[in-house]
């Protein structure tokens, strides 16, 4: 299995949509073949259409607020005493997380194809919140499928979705988290694909959704590349990019533009959710060697039992609480381009405390996983190493959990 150079990773799949011959694909009911094929045709045409790119960039700049900041975390760097620690503050984006890029692109596509309704899944509620925002912006009706357990633990985002006029549909089946929300959303699409567009909230699902999402979030690394050159005059000789990985949309977008660099120069570190320290359950299929299976239309490493039933996961972070992982990350793991590890719930919470103590930055529980590993590793790295963490979400949505786990003083009043 080999990563090709000078070809975008999203376009390195084979005819049937498999990366490296075995990850991804289209394991979908016959009914969805046609709408998926239509979407493929539309996307393949538009992704190199200058007018469409211009339109996308206009919304990214004027509405989402590109570029998001790239900042040095001076206090944290001094405190840790190793590598220089920087952050790409993607949570600056309109809505507070990277999910806005994919949501915006899906709404642009839906509008062009004449669909009036858009549906989507959500875990932490960001994908849903952003889709509801974008749908409102572009005049589309919006339905969001969300696990009942997630609705309870991510109330701020649920409120935001409703405020944006979206129907939030609770999903009570299975573990009542993201995995079931995605299933339910796909089922709804099966029954309504003639009138309705679907947005999959991460780089998961049938191949076309993996590609559209990866293409959209790559905005992050496009910006970062420019910012690095502005700051250092070149791409630093020792650069390490840390990102949390749930479905894998923010990390893929954070890395994409640096794919062709030697990993000795630009290393990618993906941090999965290890779950509670004492629990055997986790949401880290790449770290803990899960077997390849089929989930939501794609072949991927996934937590499952020997029969092939998908296993429930456990993580403090709803956005990472998913038993599978993007086929793109399976591909990056097996080609050894990226390195994957996990942080536990406790480690993520501790990292959140450290970051908020030293910096004016409030990473949500998802990027706190990445901060945890970055802080640990930065200690042992030289001063000329540039460590960058993608702070891809804001902790506002986690205030309930943080208050319960850490006490009131860690939750600001806004």
């Amino acid at each position, binding site marked *: 299995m080999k990563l090709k150079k000078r070809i975008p990773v999203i376009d390195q799949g084979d005819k049937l949509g498999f990366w490296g011959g075995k990850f991804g694909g289209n394991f979908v009911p*016959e009914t969805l073949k046609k709408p998926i094929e239509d979407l493929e045709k539309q996307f393949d045409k538009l992704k190199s259409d200058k007018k469409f790119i211009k339109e996308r960039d206009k919304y990214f700049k004027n509405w989402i607020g590109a570029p998001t900041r790239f900042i040095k975390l001076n206090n944290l760097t001094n405190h840790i005493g190793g590598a220089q620690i920087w952050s790409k503050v993607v949570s600056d984006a309109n809505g507070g997380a990277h999910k806005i890029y994919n949501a915006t692109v899906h709404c642009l596509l839906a509008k062009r194809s004449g669909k009036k309704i858009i549906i989507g899944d959500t875990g932490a509620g960001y994908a849903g919140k952003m889709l509801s925002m974008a749908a409102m912006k572009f005049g589309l009706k919006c339905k969001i499928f969300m696990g009942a357990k997630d609705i309870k633990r991510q109330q701020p985002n649920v409120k935001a979705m409703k405020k944006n006029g979206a129907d939030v549909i609770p999903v009570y089946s299975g573990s009542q988290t993201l995995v079931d929300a995605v299933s339910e959303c796909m089922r709804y699409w099966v029954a309504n694909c003639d009138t309705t567009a679907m947005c999959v909230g991460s780089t998961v699902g049938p191949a076309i959704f993996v590609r559209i999402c990866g293409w959209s979030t790559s905005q992050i690394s496009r910006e970062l590349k420019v910012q690095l050159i502005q700051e250092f005059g070149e791409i630093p000789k020792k650069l390490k990019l840390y990102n949390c990985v749930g479905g894998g949309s923010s990390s893929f977008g954070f890395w994409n533009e640096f794919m062709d660099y030697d990993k000795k120069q630009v290393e990618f570190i993906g941090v999965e959710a290890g779950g509670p320290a004492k629990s055997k359950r986790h949401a880290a299929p790449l770290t803990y060697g899960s077997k390849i299976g089929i989930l939501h239309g794609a072949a991927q490493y996934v937590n499952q039992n020997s029969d*092939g039933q998908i296993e429930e996961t456990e993580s403090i972070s709803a956005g990472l609480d998913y038993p599978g992982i993007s086929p793109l990350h399976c591909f990056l793991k097996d080609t050894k381009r990226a390195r994957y590890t996990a942080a536990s719930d406790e480690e993520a919470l501790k990292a959140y405390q450290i970051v908020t103590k030293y910096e004016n930055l409030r990473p949500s529980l998802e990027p706190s996983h990445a901060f945890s590993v970055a802080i640990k590793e930065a200690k042992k790295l030289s001063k000329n190493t540039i460590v960058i963490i993608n702070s891809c979400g804001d902790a506002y949505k986690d205030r309930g959990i943080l208050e319960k786990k850490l006490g009131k003083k860690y939750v600001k009043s806004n």
Partner: protein
Amino acid sequence: MLNPISLAFKKAKNENRPALLTYTVAGDSSKKQSLEILKTISNYADILEVGVPHNTPVADGGQIQTSAYRAIKNGIKMNDIFKIVSDFKKSKNSKPVIFMGYYNMIFQYGENNFLKKCKKSGVNGLIVVDLPWPENKIFSKKCKKNSINFIQLLSPTTSNKRLKSITKDSHDMIYYISMLSTTGGKLKISPKKILANYNKIKKISPKKNCVIGFGITEKTISNFKNTDGLVVGSQICKEITRSLNNRQNPVINVSKMVSKLRKQIS
């Protein structure tokens, strides 16, 4: 010699009626009970679809999901499902059995192992909901080699070009999904429209037995008497749930229902 599935269609045709196909989930609500259900409904049904329960089903509606989750919760495993089929096949009134499920269960068992086990336990056909054409080309060939019918699905969204290629690659039986819906949806288009699509398929592929599924219930089944076969699934699953909730015996209630369905198309 005709395979058992084609034989069942032939028998129904001789009786001037569509074949009746039922769908029940293996292990719902227990291994023993699902076997009992198969044994009694085979008095009235011609072909039995046995659902292999999966916990992330992307095409099943509420009724079948409830059945599947119930079976999984009660601990059903793939090997138990094979055992249910082989036990059923030993009973005196057994009928052809088609597995209906999702590809991951086959993938984890190993395609070759799975087919070997199917053959051994008496499974006659397979419907793999999330392994569409052309992705299923290799596997469907393997099925044919093992004398197992791989049943291709067609839907209202299937283009004419696709329809031709799929029917060409299909074995003796094809399955037409009546409408854009998950299983168990209300019939949202007219029977006339469904039959027009059905006839289009029959015109392209007159020799293949084509069944219609999704939205077929006691209320709608009599509209489709002039077809090769009809599948009833969600309504049966719903009846099992209803019986359990009312502390009644699902075996008796389901058997009554299937007998009624049979009468309606006879």
